[in-house]
């Protein structure tokens, strides 16, 4: 099962909060309210981010590492914890496996090497390692700064290793929490919208698990995992995938190396897009299925970063000609020869409960009465789990030991050199969201459009002034964007968002170096250079 192990209430009551590759102040503002309650209660806050963000401004310590050097940092922390004898030996012996190999793997990562690879002073690494290991309770939270890399899964494993080393998992106030970027990213995975799982994280390649679904559905399920999104684009390039049915995604704009993504989408024999807005991807489609807004025009559930399943409800009738996602899928099925009857979200949820043990105890009535329930919830007397992995602290241990996963530091794929000397990283701003499809419709006084954010020092070095439009060039493409200075950036580091594709198509620059294990592209690390535009053109 994959999900944040802790609840938000534990963030308020823990002793140390580590935000790693997360600017939650801007991207998860209400989660950050819980962080601030914790800080006011006395928790120490550390922020690890190449940028000195608005979250970092609240921190007791900010570690401004080089983009993509997270594993060098975490391995150096681990080595220091071991060196100082601060590991939780009884937890390691009891609940984990692979410790010796892990020790050997982090041994070369001295504080000095950590400083060299990450740019973070050795003393800061040492201090964080000691504080994290010594804290009675500690919460480690991360976002896309960890996962939008070519080695995303390795990055996550490195953080899990730290929690296993110190025993900061499976206890009240100690855990590992990926903060989800969309209101149902967690729920999508829970429901099996990942290549290798059926609902409830049941593996599709496990015959007995799959057979239960086949029996319930009266249909055969392909016994092998499918493709990740990035794998699908590769398959399009190979000519192995020629038809695509997209629900609520705008890959023509949101994919890294946008030029390639658009070319491959254009080359499809058949593209069907089901969306509530006429996005750039929908505009390319052979068939567009106008869908209702899942969060306010239909009934159902979503699952949050604390694994809480909550009801979404229909507050509005969709416009004429627009149908609920379920209705569309039912109608497709009917035309393909199988009539499922009338769509009923509650009946589908009950079917899910009958097949997914971790959802079994959450009928709609209980979800309403308890205002949401955290999975797993195995039966109707189960309150749902406040935090995961309590089994790791049971005597004797319940289930298998949790494995350490040694990982090695590999720098970002897009190398810096004389031609491309600046490191471009991407992220989100408080008032906007992803490609702006939804947020561009309201008038935010905070919004100032796309810019290439640079440190003032780089402004001086390249002789550019604030507001000046420059050409930004990567190994894949180029865009024109105005310069903005941000003192939260250090020399050599540049920042852009993906929010304003009508102004600047940032993903023309980004690299689609993909993590083979998760299919995530390295949006966070491109190499660029800037070129001044001809002087005759007004700035």
């Amino acid at each position, binding site marked *: 099962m994959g999900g944040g192990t802790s609840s938000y209430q534990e963030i308020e009551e823990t002793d140390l909060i580590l935000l790693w590759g997360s600017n939650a102040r801007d991207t998860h503002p209400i989660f950050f309210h819980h962080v601030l309650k914790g800080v006011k209660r006395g928790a120490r806050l550390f922020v690890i981010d190449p940028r000195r963000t608005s979250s970092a401004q609240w921190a007791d310590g900010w570690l401004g590492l080089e983009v993509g050097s997270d594993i060098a940092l975490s391995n150096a922390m681990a080595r220091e914890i071991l060196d100082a004898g601060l590991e939780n030996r009884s937890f390691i012996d009891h609940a984990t496996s692979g410790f010796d190999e892990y020790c050997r793997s982090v041994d070369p990562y001295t504080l000095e090497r950590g400083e060299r690879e990450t740019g973070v002073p050795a003393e800061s690494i040492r201090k964080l390692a000691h504080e994290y290991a010594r804290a009675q309770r500690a919460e480690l939270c991360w976002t896309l700064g960890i996962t939008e890399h070519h080695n995303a899964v390795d990055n996550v494993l490195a953080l899990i290793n730290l929690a296993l080393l110190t025993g900061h998992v499976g206890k009240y106030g100690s855990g590992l929490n990926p903060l989800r*970027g969309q209101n149902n*990213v967690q729920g999508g995975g829970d429901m099996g919208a990942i290549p290798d799982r059926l609902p409830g994280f049941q593996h599709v390649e496990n015959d007995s698990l799959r057979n239960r679904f086949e029996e319930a559905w009266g249909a055969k399920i392909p016994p092998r995992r499918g493709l990740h999104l990035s*794998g699908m684009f590769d398959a399009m390039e190979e000519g192995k995938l020629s038809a695509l049915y997209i629900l609520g995604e705008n890959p023509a704009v949101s994919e890294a190396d946008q030029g390639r993504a658009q070319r491959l989408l254009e080359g499809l024999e058949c593209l069907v897009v089901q969306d509530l807005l006429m996005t750039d991807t929908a505009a390319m489609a052979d068939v567009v299925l106008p869908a209702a*807004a899942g969060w306010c025009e239909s009934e159902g559930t979503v699952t949050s970063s604390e694994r809480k399943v909550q009801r979404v409800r229909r507050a509005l009738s969709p416009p004429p000609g627009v149908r609920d996602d379920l209705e569309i899928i039912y109608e497709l099925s009917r035309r393909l020869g199988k009539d499922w009857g009338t769509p009923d979200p509650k009946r589908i949820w009950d079917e899910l409960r009958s097949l997914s043990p971790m959802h079994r105890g959450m009928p709609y009535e209980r979800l309403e009465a308890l205002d949401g329930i955290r999975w797993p919830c195995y039966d109707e007397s189960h309150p749902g789990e406040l935090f995961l992995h309590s089994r790791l602290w049971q005597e004797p241990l319940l289930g298998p030991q949790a494995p350490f996963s040694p990982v090695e530091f590999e720098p970002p794929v897009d190398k810096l050199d004389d031609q491309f000397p600046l490191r471009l990283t991407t992220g989100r701003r408080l008032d906007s969201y992803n490609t702006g499809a939804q947020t561009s419709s*309201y008038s935010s006084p905070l919004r100032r459009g796309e810019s290439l954010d640079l440190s003032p020092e780089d402004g001086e070095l390249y002789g550019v002034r604030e507001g000046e439009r420059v050409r930004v060039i990567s190994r894949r493409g180029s865009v024109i964007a105005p310069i903005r200075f941000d003192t939260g950036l250090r020399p050599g580091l540049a920042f852009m968002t993906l929010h304003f594709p009508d102004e600047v198509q940032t993903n023309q620059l980004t690299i689609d170096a993909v993590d083979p294990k998760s299919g995530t592209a390295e949006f966070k690390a491109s190499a660029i250079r800037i070129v001044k535009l001809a002087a005759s053109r007004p700035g």
Partner: protein
Amino acid sequence: MEKKKPVTQDSFPFIASAPSPTVPVPPGPIPAPPPAAPRNEVALTIDGKTARVPEGSTLLEACKTQGIDTPTLCYLENLNPVNVCRVCVVELEGARTLVPACSRRVENGMVVRTDNERVRLSRRMVLEFLASSVDVSTAPELQSYLERYGGQPERYGPAAPAAGEPEAGPAGVHAAPDGLTAATVAQPVKIDNDLYVRDYGKCILCYKCVQACGEEAQNTFAIAVAGRGFDSRISTEFSVPLPDSACVYCGNCIGVCPTGALMFKSEYDMREAGNWKESEQQRTDTICPYCGVGCTLTLHVQDNQIVKATSPLDQEVTRGHLCIKGRFGWQFIRGKDKKKSS
């Protein structure tokens, strides 16, 4: 670009290489928070009846257990009490002055009266002073209290001519009152952005917006109380327009405002046009469509259009607070024709 490896089903080795990948882990014991320290019970007398409540409760909470509806203006469940409005005062035997129920903690043996003439008079005077100096036309709660306590704010005379912007004149300089008209805080409405309207002629200085903007929720500290005495007012730093201030437009100040002094511009415009029909609005709770935190949004819907988004005060994720996207990001769905907005 370098040539990619061909994609096969084995290109995704992560799960397969993890230990025991396909077999579910057995359920562990149900995790629970550490047990809370036990709270002793405190006995006190409220309006002649004995009430037993946990230690640390406020008189307001104790009154609630007795079915007593205490008026409050500056108090809110999700904020710490600041004791400024004095409308919740009760009589405590042995205390020289009336005490604010919202913040006074219970003690064993207290004898409290909530509805005698002294309490009623005090509450009535507070409400009359407020209603004679402030435009309470969009404060239904305050109006209902006025009615309950027989307040007659008009007895202070008709409103004196508006003094204009409070920041305009020198601080602390006032003309002598004429004894015939009621001084007011009337002043021009502040409309300096597309999301908020600030109509401080309707402000009763309950401080809730300052708390919500500050350390009780948002921790942005864009506003505070400026001035002294009758010149007190809520202000940005140096009274700059909101877009020049630290404001991040979370709307949490508007969410806690009890008088409509702070209002979403969309609601303000509809009210001005005579189109705001609160009695016809349906409220539906759903989950915000943006990030994965899972904030409950209460959508206020009129004529099949969302007209406002709030969040329940007792919701454990939000405690009634939202961010700019949750407050305002629904406009793409406003029932308008759905066109490309990339």
